[in-house]
């Protein structure tokens, strides 16, 4: 188990009712963590349409998490 911080943006933030939370998780990758949080908060978006960043850098969903990471979850983007 590791401790990480999850941060939520836009629709994810409203759905989760908070903009961040500290978690103790058995997730090894960002994808696994998203799965865990999607169940917890009811995020319905498919991962392929969302993006993830670790410590303020965009990352692949398969990235390995390490203790203390800040993991940013971005719902489908809609600029313009």
């Amino acid at each position, binding site marked *: 188990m590791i401790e990480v911080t999850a941060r939520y943006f*836009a629709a994810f933030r409203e759905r989760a009712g908070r903009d961040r939370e500290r978690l103790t998780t058995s997730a090894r990758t960002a994808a696994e963590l998203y799965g865990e949080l999607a169940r917890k908060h009811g995020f319905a978006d498919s991962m392929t349409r969302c993006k993830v960043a670790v410590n303020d850098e965009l990352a692949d969903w398969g990235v390995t998490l390490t203790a203390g990471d800040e993991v940013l979850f971005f719902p489908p983007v*809609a*600029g313009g």
Partner: protein
Amino acid sequence: MSFKITSNPIDPEARKRELVHAAAGACVTFEGWVRNHNEGEAVQALEYEAHAAIAEKEGAKILAEAKQKFAVDIALCEHRVGKLAIGDCAVWVGVAAGHRGAAFDACRYIIDETKARVPIWKKEHYASGETGWVNCATR
């Protein structure tokens, strides 16, 4: 900063002056405006949110790609965040190039990639009082 996230109004005329370049024979600019309707709903206002640091970094990458793919001299983009009213300019793209083909193509590429990749989100405020996050990633 060639790709800028701003909470201030965008001034397209001022931005256009940054495109002046002696080698340029073509200038194409694009402005995205807040419209009063979307998918059948009356829209009263829009709210944009971004992760500014990542948005500017990813945006700079898009501008660099446009310069690599098309023969352009200057490529710039600015995207607004915060609450916008109908008619406000939400996004501006400006390209200067030797010839019109490259200028049109690069401008189109920049706005399309920005909409698809840059962490910016849009919440619509409807006439009914409801709000909704727009889910329009293009791929």
